[in-house]
């Protein structure tokens, strides 16, 4: 994760390397400190694993959305697309009884296909991303219900399916740190997305599109193709999210997912990615997603009344972003 990757970060001006990156964690660290002091139960291994586990799905969705946001777009469909991919996995594994890898591949392909469609609607039909993905959000929500027959599809016939998210390969090797696979998958997705953003042509065009699409077009670049590519990659990542949540719940819950897009976008923005495009980092998004999970978990551990949890969460999200703004300004 250390090698994050926005070209912006390479400038000596806004980012000054390791020290700066440490500072970016400050909001998260402050929260962790406060909760650790307030409750002895917070810093328990079990609880930390619970927080990480809770971050896995939102983190993966947020990374998917990060890619699209850097192009200057937005994706409101990630929540329901995740569910759609989970349902597709359910159909393949439970209804058709095919082997597990096919279910996983199917889910990721479903995500990719949906991303291709969103990307095509945005790039070719010039429909604003907000509307294109809002439409897709509704379409996918409906289709998930249709395909599943409006009821959950369970993976009881696919033994080991719930180990994808809940098992711990790490724990088998080092029993003291039973980090669930779901969390390792989140990290793997983050590494992959960082790599793509930082090291590949697709990543470079992602930033370039968000920075000045017209300039990219006039440079003779096939803007549409790359844009569709970004949406497709984003969709594939959402597919991974679909597998994760299906595995965690050992079922595809067709009605889940709406509202998750806002939380994913919130993680992205808290992580310092600009909604106007052209800049952003996967590491920031991970931190943003962690801030959200830590906050939710910590407030619950402290038994704060649920209505006040909401108030505190809202306040801290604003403050976290404000602190980040102050930090950047003083750099």
């Amino acid at each position, binding site marked *: 994760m250390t090698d994050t990757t926005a070209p912006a970060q390479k400038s000596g001006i806004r980012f000054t390397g390791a020290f700066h990156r440490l500072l970016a964690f400050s909001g998260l660290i402050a929260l962790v400190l406060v909760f650790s002091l307030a409750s002895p139960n917070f810093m328990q291994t079990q609880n930390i694993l619970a927080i990480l586990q809770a971050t896995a799905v939102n983190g993966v969705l947020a990374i998917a959305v990060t890619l699209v946001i850097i192009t200057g777009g937005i994706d409101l469909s990630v929540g329901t697309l995740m569910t759609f991919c989970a349902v597709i996995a359910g159909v393949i594994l439970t209804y058709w009884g095919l082997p597990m890898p096919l279910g996983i591949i199917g889910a990721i392909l479903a995500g990719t296909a949906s991303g291709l469609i969103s990307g095509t609607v945005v790039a070719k039909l010039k429909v604003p991303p907000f509307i294109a993905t809002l439409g897709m959000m509704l379409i996918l929500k409906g289709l998930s219900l249709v395909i599943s027959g409006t009821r959950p599809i369970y993976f009881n016939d696919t033994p080991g399916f719930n180990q994808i998210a809940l098992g711990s390969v790490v724990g088998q090797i080092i029993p003291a740190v039973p980090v669930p696979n779901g969390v390792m998958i989140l990290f793997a997705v983050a590494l992959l997305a960082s790599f793509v953003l930082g090291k590949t042509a697709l990543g470079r065009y992602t930033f370039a599109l968000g920075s000045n699409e017209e300039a990219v077009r006039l440079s003779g670049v096939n803007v549409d193709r790359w844009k569709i590519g970004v949406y497709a990659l984003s969709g594939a990542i959402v597919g991974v999210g679909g597998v994760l949540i299906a595995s965690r*719940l050992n079922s595809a819950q067709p009605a889940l997912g709406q509202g998750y897009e806002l939380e994913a976008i919130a993680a992205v923005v808290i992580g310092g990615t600009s909604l106007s495009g052209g800049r952003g980092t996967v590491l920031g998004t991970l931190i943003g997603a962690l801030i959200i999970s830590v906050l*939710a978990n910590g407030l619950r551990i402290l038994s704060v009344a*649920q209505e006040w949890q909401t108030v505190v969460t809202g306040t801290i999200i604003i403050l976290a972003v404000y602190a980040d703004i102050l930090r950047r300004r003083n750099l």
Partner: protein
Amino acid sequence: QDNYDIALISKGFQHQFWQAVKAGADQAAADLGVTVTFEGPETESQVDRQMDMLAAALSRQPDAIGFAALDSQAATPLLQQAQDAGIPVIAFDSGVDSDIPLTTATTDNVAAAALAADVMAELIGGEGKVAIVAHDQTSRTGIDRVEGFSNRIKEAYPNIEIVSVQYGGGDQLQSTEITKSILLANPDLKGIFGANEGSVLGVANGKQELGSDIVVIGYDSGAAQKAFIESGVIAGAITQNPVGIGYQTVQAAVSALKGEELPEIIDTGFYYYNADNMSDPQIAAVLYD
């Protein structure tokens, strides 16, 4: 007395039904001298959010847990974790497919909705078109109530046709719009079953806004629904005993902590109430505002 810490994870939080469960739990907490926390996801589809809540509750190391599962399977690993940690689990509202919970405080939603169907059939004279406005297409309570109602109609009342089943998320405004559309599309409709509080209030609103005279059967209680029943807009409603569910859950948890024996099921019952029997002490006790 021991100051036990009991965490209740419910299926919802903001709806009056769940607030009534919470009120019962709080009452029991006061009576028994224990501490109770109550939490639930925003909608009944957010299974994973409920898992996060359960996980956080476990981290808190409570003395006992009360749990109303949105999906029993999904919760199994965490419930196992609770059992391993020696934390007794009491299921409430709907059963959990697992032998971990020591007991379940619940009512039979299917049977309750079937009773609503019987009442509806009687009030519309055993024939005609009816519709259902429900809260949730995929949640257990949503499925049970819709199926309980429609299966009973199909089995017992061949002359009654269910022309439309629509879902308004328990949102009153949305349920109002849905009701109006149903009424306008089916001018000869005889009755609507509203499958939870928000749904039936929407149905009542829609009926009033269009000046219709259909028969409305509701579910749950609450001040507004009671008022509508008194004024005759709603003919009557099924109520469970949410306050009782909350109270009994906490009571069962305390009993478990004290090592007492628990029955497998604590049936908290359901009732049909209307303007005539609302003030009966037995009924009034299970209604909430």
